[in-house]
């Protein structure tokens, strides 16, 4: 049995459910929009590990029967207001019951796509960059600084072709550093910012699913193709093959982060080098599957059904 943990209104979760149905893989949906109301959970942590069950109207699931779990957490907007609870209490209650859920998923012995502990590295892009270097992929020349003079030097060293973007997990649009922006550099006194040499080439989005690799080549004139439409740029996508060493480095990076499913942002330069910018632990792969027509969700469904040999996480970091 497979457990899908997510929101019905989330299109990626909906796709996973649809694919599981297509392939006749039995699953249950734990709808985070209404969880824990409407569900009965009884989970026991002992020296034998974790056991117990989840029940909803019409079904009951023993945790021992799970072959895989897919989880995609919702923002506050995806949750319904619980009955009889003051709205001001809702965030704290959500935090409490999602913490319990995360602790459970961390300790289940089956495939979990994805456990939270591995994905949290995405909260520091520069931390991730150090993992990227060690995996064998390239990291763009990067400057993290609070010093306006250091930015000016970096800007000149990079032939005035520099982008800036967030360091943390807070999503930002990658933008070019224009000469007019230099006047705002004194604002760095408030905190550090990340600047990177602009890497020319073609964006490649890689999804790793267990030990499978799906790469999509993205054609766009936008600095950040994800937001290309807003700036009037067309975005086109096609499947592509990666050099073996690059595919292998992507798999190694995902396994090192304990991510069964990962979205890895690469750029192939005109010289054939591959730079890596980020590893997304909860990728919205629907967009890429639809545009490049690659069977990512089929591979995911198979992974949840048939499992995958999980390496012991490197750090027993808590998440729950």
């Amino acid at each position, binding site marked *: 049995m497979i457990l899908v943990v997510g929101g019905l209104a989330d299109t990626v979760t909906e796709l996973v459910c649809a694919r599981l149905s297509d392939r006749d893989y039995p699953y249950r949906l734990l709808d985070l929009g209404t969880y824990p109301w409407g569900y009965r959970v009884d989970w026991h942590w002992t020296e034998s590990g974790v056991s117990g069950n989840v029940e909803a109207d019409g079904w009951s699931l023993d945790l021992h029967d799970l072959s895989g779990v897919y989880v995609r957490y919702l923002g506050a907007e995806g949750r319904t207001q619980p009955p009889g609870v003051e709205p001001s209490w809702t965030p704290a209650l959500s935090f*409490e019951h999602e913490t319990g859920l995360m*602790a459970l998923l961390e300790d289940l012995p089956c495939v979990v796509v994805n456990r939270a502990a591995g994905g949290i590295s995405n909260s520091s892009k520069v*931390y991730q960059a150090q993992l990227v270097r060690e995996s064998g992929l390239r*990291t763009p020349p990067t400057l993290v600084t*609070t010093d306006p003079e250091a930015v000016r030097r970096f800007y000149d060293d990079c032939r005035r072709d520099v982008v800036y973007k967030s*360091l943390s997990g807070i999503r930002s649009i990658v933008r070019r550093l224009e000469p007019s922006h230099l006047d705002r550099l004194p604002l760095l006194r408030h905190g550090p910012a990340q600047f990177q040499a602009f890497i020319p080439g073609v964006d490649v989005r890689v999804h790793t699913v267990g030990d499978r690799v799906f790469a999509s080549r993205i054609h766009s004139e936008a600095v950040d193709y994800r937001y290309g439409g807003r700036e009037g740029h067309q975005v086109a996508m096609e499947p592509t093959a990666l050099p073996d060493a690059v595919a292998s480095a992507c798999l190694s990076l995902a396994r090192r982060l304990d991510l069964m499913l990962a979205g890895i942002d690469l750029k192939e330069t005109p010289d054939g080098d591959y730079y890596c910018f980020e590893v997304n632990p909860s990728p919205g792969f629907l967009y890429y599957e639809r545009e490049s027509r690659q069977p990512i969700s089929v591979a995911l469904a198979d992974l949840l059904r048939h499992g995958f040999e999980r390496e012991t996480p490197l750090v027993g970091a808590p998440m729950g």
Partner: protein
Amino acid sequence: MDGTYLFLGRPEGPCYADVRSMLEAQGHATLVTADPFARPCRFSWALDTVHSTSSLTLEGREAIGDHQIAGVVVLCPEWIDPAGWRPDDLTYVQAETHAALLAWLWSLPCPIVNRYPPAIWYRPQAPLLAWHGVLLQAGLPTLDTVVTNVDQNGGLGRRLVGDGSGAVYTPLTADTRYLVDSVEDWCGVTALQRVTPVSLSAPHGEPLWVCVVGDHVVWDGDPPAEAAALERGLRAFARATGLAVIEVALAPTSKGLCVVAVETRPRLERLREATRKDVVERIVEFLTAAVRVEVEVP
């Protein structure tokens, strides 16, 4: 001079004062900054596929580079004063600052107390339940715990301890515990279960704290009879977390001694004076070990 020891964060508590004093007494230079990214400090870190070079300038000082930093003690982080900030901007700059600090610490080739993995950095107050799997892997005894929203009319307490002495309710997102041992208490738990599953475990006795510094285990009092086996598990647990200094509390339960708390940020103030002195010596020993650390990002 062999480099400078940096203390990052709010300068308070014995981990700051005692460790700093001992380092200075041994002739080491120390510097303290609440926030290396706030003015008047200046910070720059350049990173690419091969190189990583950083520079930190504190007020009135020369810039120090990576290899001039002999060691780092990470104290409680300084939060940005919210005055004058819009909430969204404050959240953003706070997240950026923490992300930069975490990453920079992993780039430094010196001993650090503590070089936190992201999962601990971002969740320093993780509940004990979140450590269950790691504790088990290390061979340490864990508390049996139930997370449930099934109303069992007080049967939970009986199931947990068998003798009707109740259970401990521990919110997973707060550092508090409540003994549930009366009909009224169980009614409260049942009411709470209508809005969230609750975490319940067996009651325990007085905790005994133990601090692991590198490979050294320092008990805050008389070691228990099973200390030898526990120390093996404690060292394995500390290694699994990747932390140089970690504190663990063990307490008697109906099934014997169990781990009842894990503290990832050294809070030496609760230790007895003799224990604290021993721990401080071990921390200084760790920081001043002659070997350079080969940092491998987990």
